[in-house]
Structures are given as C-alpha cells and as structure tokens.
C-alpha cells in the first residue's frame, strides 16, 4: 500500500517538475499593469513614466496618470522603453524552399511549409519582430497564398495569426523566358480564368433555368485566384525592375485587385507612378544603391527610403538575414533616419504601416486601448545600436526574456577558461 502511494507521489512530483522546466512562462494572468519610464505608443505621442493596463491580453488603458487596480500584477520596466512589437510585411524565409518551379501555382500555401524550429523565427523573436507575413519567393509567376504568423510557438497552428491572407505574383521572368513571355503567360492565365468563370456562370444559370440542384464547387486550383478577383485576398506583386511598376499598376487597375507592391531597389525610378497610384509599398532590404552619374563619372548614393518618403509614399521595410546590418528592422529604420527621415515616420514603417498593409492593424502596430497587448521592452531608444530587446510580450504573456536566452549567451561570452592546449576541434 505504502509503495503505491509512494509511486503516485513521485509521479506527481515528476509532472510538476516537467511542467515548470519546459519553461512555460507564468500562467497568463487576468490583469496586468506595465510601468515604463517611456512608452512609444506610435498612435499618439510618447508617454513619460506611463502605465499600460492589460486585461486578458488586450490593452485596457494607456497613460501617464492611469491608476493601477489593486489586483493587477505589475511588470516593472523602470529604465526601459516600451513600444509595440515590430511587424514584417513580407518575407520568404522560414520556409524550406522559397517557391515551386512550375510558374502558375496559386493554390499552394506557405502554411504547409513553415518550419517552426527554424533559427529564423528564433532570431526574429530576439530581434523584436512579433508578426510576419510569410509569402512564397519571387521565382514563380503566381507563387501561392501566404500566412501571418508570430515567431513564437512550437507548431504552426500555435504560431498562426491569420491563415489565408496574401497571394504572391512576381513579374520577374523565371527560367530563360523573356519578359514578353512572362507577361503573356499571365494574360493567358487570366483569360482562361475568365473563360472558366463564364462557363461556370453559364452552367449555373442553365441549372437554375431547369431548376436542377447545382452543387458544383469552383475548381480548387482556381479558388485562390477567384478570391483575389473578389478582393478577398490581397495581391503582393513583386516588381524586379522599374519597367515592371507600370505593368503591376495596370494589372491592379484592369482586374481591380487590392495590391501591395513589393519593390526591388531599381524601382525607385518609378517613384512618381507609385505615388500617383497610392498603392502601399514594401521596400527591398537593400536601402542604398549606387548609380554612376554619366556626366561627372562620379558614384552617387541613392537612398531609396528617402526618395519614397519625399514622394509621400507609405512603405514598410524588409530584412535580409544574410547581410550584417540589414537583418534588424530597427537598423533599417535607423538608416532611413540617418538620411533625413523623421523618427516617428521611420518607427511607424516598422510597426503600424506593415500591420495596416497585411490587415492586422486592428490588433497590432501600436499601443492603444482595445489592441492586443503585444509589446517590446527595450533597454534603450529603439534606433540606438546599443539597446537590446530585453523582453517580448505577446497577448499579455512574456514569451522571450534576454536573461534566459542561452544561444545569445553562447554567442557573446568568451569560451570556457579551461582550454586544453591540443584543441582538436
């Protein structure tokens, strides 16, 4: 008898131990209050020594003189800066392969190939990114639909914010086809789609005429394109050269799509057209390109965010994990501020604007009452190179703490002191 109770006692202990060691953060509390020396709300002005009241994951109140209810758990952020989490409007990393090799595959989705344990998501969380739209790459004409995920969660379902959100169209000719061939393939696909829809409609009206039950579904491979035409999906059109921008705008007008332009650095030449079209823009990760001035034979630096900023175009930044500075969104914003962009505009283009572009600005992008309590606790000003992301809170729950970041420790501390002379690594 005693032994059985003994076993049960040990197993309970074991379960408790496993639960806490997995590192599940403290259970989600109903009421929270965040006290910070500076709150960057993005929506309004910065608040000095402000308080944010959070109730089951959504922000109840923000302000300097908000009094904290007695039962709220207080999170201290005395000498830290609190700001909304960064949002990435377009990325193709985090997938095992960026795109299919058949040109027209609008029916596939990145949801099926997001790899939760990829270091890309771990790095994004460490760098303060809280939501990203993962879309296929630029090598297929109709790449497929995208998914919005947060970089936290052990399965794709846990990471999910919005499943079926964007459709990727790339105007860069893949393989050895020319631009003419590429555009012709797009036009042919659209005419075939229109013919198919007409036939479908025709069959539907025939069936109604004869009052026969009509249960034919739209062909699954064409469903995403139909949603695109009915504005249920947003088209993300990648322009490889400045000459592609007028084509993208023409596609947007003829088929009446909600469109976001994903631009390569060369597209700064078409900034006038883009400004007139009032379409949202996602810039390439390379923010500075060099052009040779033909007359003076000098090298001129073209700062692309400034060109778009002066033309009054709202844009979001992208990152490139392989390049040194350009893997951080705050570095991209800082580069734009370096060449003259206003600070809060730059901060908006890494928080509020991308959230608006991918349609999650009802929950993310700024610290306002009613929005989801997703925020970063920074050690200093976001654009200062020496400040680190100390903690990340998603929906009221602290999901990342720098103190507990093993990989970061290993990367910054020197190796263990005891070092055998004949190191055989």
């Amino acid at each position: 008898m005693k032994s059985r109770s003994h076993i049960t006692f040990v197993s309970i202990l074991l379960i408790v131990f496993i639960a806490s060691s997995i590192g599940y953060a403290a259970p989600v509390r109903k009421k929270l209050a965040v006290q910070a020396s500076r709150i960057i709300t993005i929506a309004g002005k910065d608040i000095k020594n402000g308080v944010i009241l959070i109730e089951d994951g959504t922000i109840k109140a923000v302000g300097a003189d908000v009094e904290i209810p007695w039962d709220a758990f207080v999170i201290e952020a005395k000498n830290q800066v609190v700001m909304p989490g960064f949002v990435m409007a377009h990325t193709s990393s985090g997938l095992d392969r960026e795109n299919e090799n058949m040109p027209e595959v609008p029916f596939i989705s990145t949801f099926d190939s997001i790899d939760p344990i990829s270091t890309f998501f771990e790095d994004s969380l460490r760098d303060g990114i809280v939501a990203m739209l993962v879309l296929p790459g630029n090598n297929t004409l109709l790449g497929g639909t995208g998914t919005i995920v947060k970089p936290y969660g052990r399965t794709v379902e846990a990471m999910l914010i919005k499943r079926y959100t964007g459709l990727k169209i790339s105007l860069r000719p893949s393989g050895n086809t020319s631009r003419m061939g590429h555009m012709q393939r797009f036009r042919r696909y659209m005419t075939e789609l229109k013919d198919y829809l007409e036939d479908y409609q025709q069959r539907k009206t025939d069936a109604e005429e004869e009052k026969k039950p009509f249960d034919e579904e739209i062909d699954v491979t064409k469903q995403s394109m139909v949603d695109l035409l009915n504005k249920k999906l947003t088209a993300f059109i990648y322009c490889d050269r400045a000459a592609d921008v007028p084509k993208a705008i023409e596609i947007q007008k003829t088929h009446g799509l909600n469109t976001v332009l994903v631009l390569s650095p060369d597209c700064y030449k078409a900034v006038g057209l883009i400004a007139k079209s009032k379409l949202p823009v996602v810039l390439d990760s390379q923010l500075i390109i060099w052009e040779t001035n033909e007359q003076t034979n000098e090298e001129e630096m073209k700062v692309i965010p400034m060109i778009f900023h002066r033309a009054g175009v709202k844009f979001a930044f992208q990152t490139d994990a392989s390049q040194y500075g350009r893997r951080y969104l705050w570095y991209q914003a800082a580069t734009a501020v370096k060449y003259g962009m206003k600070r809060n505009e730059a901060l908006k283009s890494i928080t509020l604007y991308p959230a608006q572009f991918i349609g999650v600005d009802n929950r993310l992008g700024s610290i306002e009452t009613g929005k989801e309590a997703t925020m970063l606790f920074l050690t200093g000003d976001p654009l200062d190179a020496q400040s680190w992301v100390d903690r990340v809170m998603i929906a009221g729950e602290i999901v990342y703490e720098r103190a507990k970041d093993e990989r970061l420790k290993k990367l910054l501390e020197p190796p263990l002191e005891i070092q055998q002379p004949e190191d055989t690594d």
Partner: protein
Amino acid sequence: MRIYVILLTFLMLVSAFVAPGRAEITAIKAGKILTISGEPITDGVILIEDGKITEIGTGIDIPEGAAVVDADKKVVMPGIVDASAPAPVRGDLNEQSNEITPTLRISDALDPQSKALKRIVQTGVTTLFVSPGRQNIIGGLGVVVKPTGKVPQHMVIKDEAALTIVMDMDPTQGNRIPRGQPPVNFYFRRPGTRMAIIWMLRKSFFDAQQQTDSEQIEDPNLAILSSVLKDEIPIHVNARRAIAIRATLKVADEYGLKLIFQECTEGYKVAEQLAERKIPVVLGPFYYYPGSMGQYREGRKVNWNNAGILAEAGVKVALSSGGQPGAIDILTAATFAVRHGMDSDEALKAITIIPAEILGVADRVGSLEKGKDADIVILSGDPLNVTTRVEKVILNGKTVYQ
C-alpha cells in the same frame, strides 16, 4: 635621341619642385574633435596647409584669407584606415599559375577608376590596404593606398607593405590542367590538403633561410622571403579557424616571423597565445551563423564578441570591412562591435590608429596630430551611432565628398 630623353626628365623634375602657388590654408571649426591619439577637444580648430595638419587645438586664431569649414555642431574624426578593403583591381587578384608567388606586387594592378574606391571614400575611409588574393599560399606583396589620384603611382603611400600568406583551405581549390598541356599527375596547383600547405610554406622559408646564409641570392622570390625573415617586411596571415592559427604560430616560432593575422574569425579561442606573442589582429566582418554552406562545412564556430574578447585579452585589434565589396561600411562594423561588447574607445582606435600602426603608416595617418596628413571625416554626430551620417570627407586637405 638620348639627349632628348634626358632633357625631358630634367624638365619634369623642375616642374615638380615649383610649389603650385601659395598654398592657401583651410581651417575647420569643429564642435567636437576626436583626435584618437589624445583627449577629444571640444570647440577646437584644425588648420590645414599643403595637405598637412599644421595646428590643432582650442583658441587658435584663424589667419585671414583661410577657407573656413564650419562644423561647430558636428563631430570631427581622423580619416578611417581599413586594413583589408575590397581591392580596387580589375580581374583576378591571384596569380594562379603558381602557389608561391612572393614577387607579385598588387600595386601594378591598381585601378584608379574603380567604383569600389569612389564608394569607400563616401563611408569615411581615407587609407586602405590592398592585398593579393587568397588562392595562393604566399600571395604576394600588398600596398597601402589612398583613394585619390588619376594614376596608380599617385595613389600609393607605401608599396610592398606586407607579404600575404593564406593558411586556410582556400589554396587547395582551383586545380586544373594548364592550357595546351597533356594532363599530368601534378596539375597546375599542387596542395590538396592542409598538410601540403604547411609543408610548402616551411619548404619556401627553409630555402630562403639557406639562401640568406649563403649570401648569394639569384631567385627574386627567395630574395623577398629572406627580407621577410629579416623582419624588413611584415607578414599578413589569413587564417580563420583556430587550427589554422595554431599551425601558423608553430611555423612562426620556427622561423621567428613577425605576424599579423587577417580575418581570424575564431581568434577568441586563442586570445591568450596571440596576446603573449603581441600579434596584432585585423578582424574581418563578423558572421551571425556560418554565413554560407561552405563556412558551415568548414566547421567555423562564430562568436559575435570576437573583437571585445581579443581586446580584453590585450591583443591589438583592428576592424576592417573584410574585403567583401558592399558588405558593410566600417563605421557600422565598429558600431556592432561595441553593441556586442567591445569598449567604444577601443572600437574607435580599432578603425584609425591601430590599423595605421599595423600597416606601418602611423607617422602619416590614423590620428589628428600636427604634421600628419589632413585626412578628416566630419560626421553629423557620435560616429558609433547608426543614425549618424558622414557629412564631409577631406583627403590630403582637399574635400573629396560632401
């Protein structure tokens, strides 16, 4: 015909001596001057005449008629020295017909029109070291240049500045049949493994030693190697992994060589040995993870705070853009080094005076002192801040970018 040539050279010499008119003085009034060699000066003045700094300090009266550069809300620092910059050379950097090419002088191949030069000036770099490629075991003689001048001769400050030796696996690639010859067992290039590399290095130094002892040297290659043995020319060793660094140290101890390590990605593992031997290190760009599959397969273990650890251990550390064109500008490299743990003063020294000392041109560049070249960078704020912009670059007294 011969008289005509002599007359011509005489004419040219005369025209060089006549000073081009009275050299007008430029004065820079700056909010903050980071002299690097001394304490930073607030609200100081720098006087420049004939390409050199004549006066620096506070309370210096500006002679009338001097062109005044107003930088009072700005920060002024000496021109940046990049100890391994993207080479302004067209075509291949390596003489691949042979693995040991000490006599190769990269200064013959400098391209004054190269776009990389015009761009690197705009990031604040005013002196750079150009080394031969990384495909040969002994690559050849590098050169210290300034990114100005119409013809390579005008660019060169110090020729034959250092001998480049590569201790990583790069020399084992590129083996192929020479043109027009039947395939023989030894192709164009012999080393297939690290052992072969070290053997060939030892053999060349051994031959050089024999030659120096026997006093008569015909082979020009061995002549260079013997002057290296006599420490007249420093050696730049490109080594990334700890195993390569240790192998080089062994060879260096055998022949008493004066070394400087380039790139040194895993330098943090051997920080003590480097500090003991007082070997300076030029760090290339740091990697987040092994950047490419090649680096991953090579088993390279990366530490972001490489610069900080080496500096703490007392090694003379210089930061550089690492020879990849367009990868990173050097001020960003210094900013990230400080972010990952290096002390900010060390970082500023690591891009100015330390590389100048390593390259042996500290008498002319590297800090703002009297008598040094007037290479000055004017920035909109603290150099180690990403939102600071390079406003103006002055090279040899002339403004080259604003």
